[in-house]
């Protein structure tokens, strides 16, 4: 469902993403881990078409993000690490706007917006301007925007940041349910516990390179041994890479 082919991004002399090859199957939750500045957010911004890669490409549900960006974007929902939204729209208007961008119109757009606002606990604030929302509320509204067109691929950059424990638990459940229904989730996170709990497969990126990828068991076999926690495995892999 998601395939990266030699995906590379350079900013001047700095290689932020280095020849990334990756394949993620339909209905998988893929946890993307790495230190600060390892290249997680840049990879995500390349996947969703915010940045143009220096070389290589990514295919989303078979659509090449470089050659057919609109088709690739149509099958993707995205939540950035910092959910900047249109402050002077209300929550409801924001969702209707996003729905329009993805081709949903009229009654369908309105009912879907209402449904998501209620499901994500924003129904009572639907008529308030976004500028009055807390960080967590904005995060939930951004997630509603990413889900509004029922995308088969969901790309989330640090989605748990700013969420209260209840909302974070709801999100984990929702992601599992979406994956069970066939949605592919690409999730970057600093929370190893979250990755351990919900990710089917895990990728570890270091200085722009994918240094390990697989299920938790596969990663344990690679480094750390059976029964090692994801934290142990993660730190051991990064320590080996540093040598």
């Amino acid at each position: 469902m998601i395939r990266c082919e030699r995906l590379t991004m350079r900013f001047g002399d700095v290689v932020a993403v280095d020849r990334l090859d990756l394949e993620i199957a339909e209905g998988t939750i893929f946890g993307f881990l790495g230190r600060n500045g390892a290249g997680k957010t840049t990879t995500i911004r390349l996947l969703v078409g915010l940045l143009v890669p220096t070389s290589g490409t990514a295919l989303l549900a078979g659509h090449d993000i470089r050659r057919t960006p609109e088709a690739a974007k149509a099958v993707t929902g995205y939540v950035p690490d910092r959910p900047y939204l249109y402050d002077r729209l209300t929550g409801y208007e924001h969702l209707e706007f996003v729905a329009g961008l993805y081709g949903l119109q009229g009654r369908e757009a309105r009912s879907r917006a209402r449904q998501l606002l209620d499901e994500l606990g924003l129904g009572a604030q639907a008529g308030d301007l976004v500028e009055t929302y807390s960080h967590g509320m904005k995060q939930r509204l951004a997630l509603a925007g990413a889900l509004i067109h029922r995308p088969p691929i969901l790309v989330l950059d640090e989605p748990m940041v700013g969420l209260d424990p209840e909302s974070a638990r709801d999100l984990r459940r929702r992601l599992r349910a979406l994956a069970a229904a066939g949605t592919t989730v690409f999730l970057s996170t600093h929370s190893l516990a979250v990755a351990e709990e919900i990710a089917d497969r895990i990728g570890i990126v270091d200085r722009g390179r994918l240094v390990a990828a697989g299920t938790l068991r596969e990663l344990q076999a690679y480094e750390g041994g059976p029964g090692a926690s994801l934290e142990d495995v993660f730190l051991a892999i990064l320590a080996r890479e540093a040598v």
Partner: protein
Amino acid sequence: MTAGWLVRPRWLSLRRGLRNRPAQGAVVAVLVGAFWLGLFLAVLRLLDWVDGLGGLGAVLAERMLALVLVALLLMLLVSATITALGVFYLAEDLTILRAAPVPLRRLHRARFLETLMASSWMVLVVQAPLLAAYGVHFGGGLAFGLGVLASIVPFLVVPVALGVLLATGLVLLVPARGARDGLAIASAIGLALLVVTVRLLAPERVAHPSGLVGIAAYLADTGAPASPWLPSTWASEVLVAALGLRAGDAGFHAAVLASTALVLFLVSATVVEAVYPLAWTRAQIGRSRGGDRDRWAWRALRSLTALLPGQRAVVLSKDLVVFLRDPAQWSQLVLVGLLVAVYVYNFVALPLHGADPVARTVRKLATVLNLGLATFVATAVAVRFVYPLPSLEGRAWWIVRTAPVALAEVWAAKFWTGFLPLSVLTLGLAGTTNELLGTPRLLSVAVSPVLVALVAAVVSLGLAFGAHYADLDGRDAGRLATGPGAILYMLTAVVLIAVVVTVTAGSVDALLAPGRGDEPGATLVARGLVAAGLGGGIVVAGGVTVVARRFGLRALARLAG
């Protein structure tokens, strides 16, 4: 930790900005230098001309200086109040400073200095060449230099101290964001009233053929001598005495000005120190305006744009709703209203209606230039509303960029947002003023397609420059409209307008002269020449529209959200 340490982050950011973008700094320096030189020469010429009026010359020069200083004082007061609201109560870095063990007195000193710099640089840009011209013209010498030094700093400190006090009072009474928005609109209305008042005083009456009668009438209309309680009067007294225009006690007035500035600074420090924790806490209360009462705007626009193809309808609705809910844009609208009113009034007030040869020539010239002037007004509006459109997407630009929307759709939505109202404005302005000039209707109709094409080019250029110089962090359209990119846009648009007016001037001239071009007896060749001139203008404007669109789409594609 000193107050200087607290302003260090701003200073480092400014220095780094200039280092990283030296070309931009050079453009600003050249433009400010050109403005200074232009204003200096213009004031010098005005003073030379005033000198030729005999004994009244010195009186008029003194009165002009006093009037300018009063206007600058009022501008400074409003600007300092708005700036102080932001610097003292809304700036994001205040959270860090409030959490740190920074004494409030030092915080006040640092923020006062920042407010002083941010609010007074515009005034200094105007004041410096003005005072230099006075010094050169009247041979001020060292005494005038000392007078300027003694008066200028306290002249700036007084309104800033008052602005800090006003801002603090306002924050205690109403939420800071609401107060700033309200003040921005009020200041725009104030500025508009000031300009309209000056315009209605008709300075051209000074040049009345009866000479002294015109000056006397003008002086009578400008009101009584300035109040002895105004700091601008004290500054004016210091400068006038230093120039030797009139005997006066410069030292006394300099002392009054300096002591007032010092006292007000200390009062503002004491008040801020006493109430700052409470005032800052109140400033954190955001506006919690319910959207339901505004929902009609979104609904109405979604219905109105329902027939537009693609996603441009939803982008257009979003742009317009965001515009309607941004009070900063409303203050811009006031300025646009002022610009239009003054433009139309000029055609009523200027000596265009006589039957003498001079009036006829001026009228003909005005008709030809009207094509360009009306579009220039449209450009002045576009720099405030069209140029900032890409930047106003702000950090939420990622929403559009990650959606399956072609940039051409986004471009089209923004283009029509600017093109339709500006076309109506330009055609309305040209039509109204042509009527006032008594221009043949055929001419107004014939030049309409050229005007529309020119507006399209101006809008396309505005979006292209706006995308190229986009600042996704710069949410204030007013500030964006005065940046280097906006100035370059204006200059490019003026060149385009000049080219199109030059290409079409022959056709307009032909249509103004009976029997050439439009009359039944006109030859096919003459008609062809008229059509070629107008067509040439449309082709030039159309070409610029297309090229600017390509350039702008590339710039939009480079904009990462």
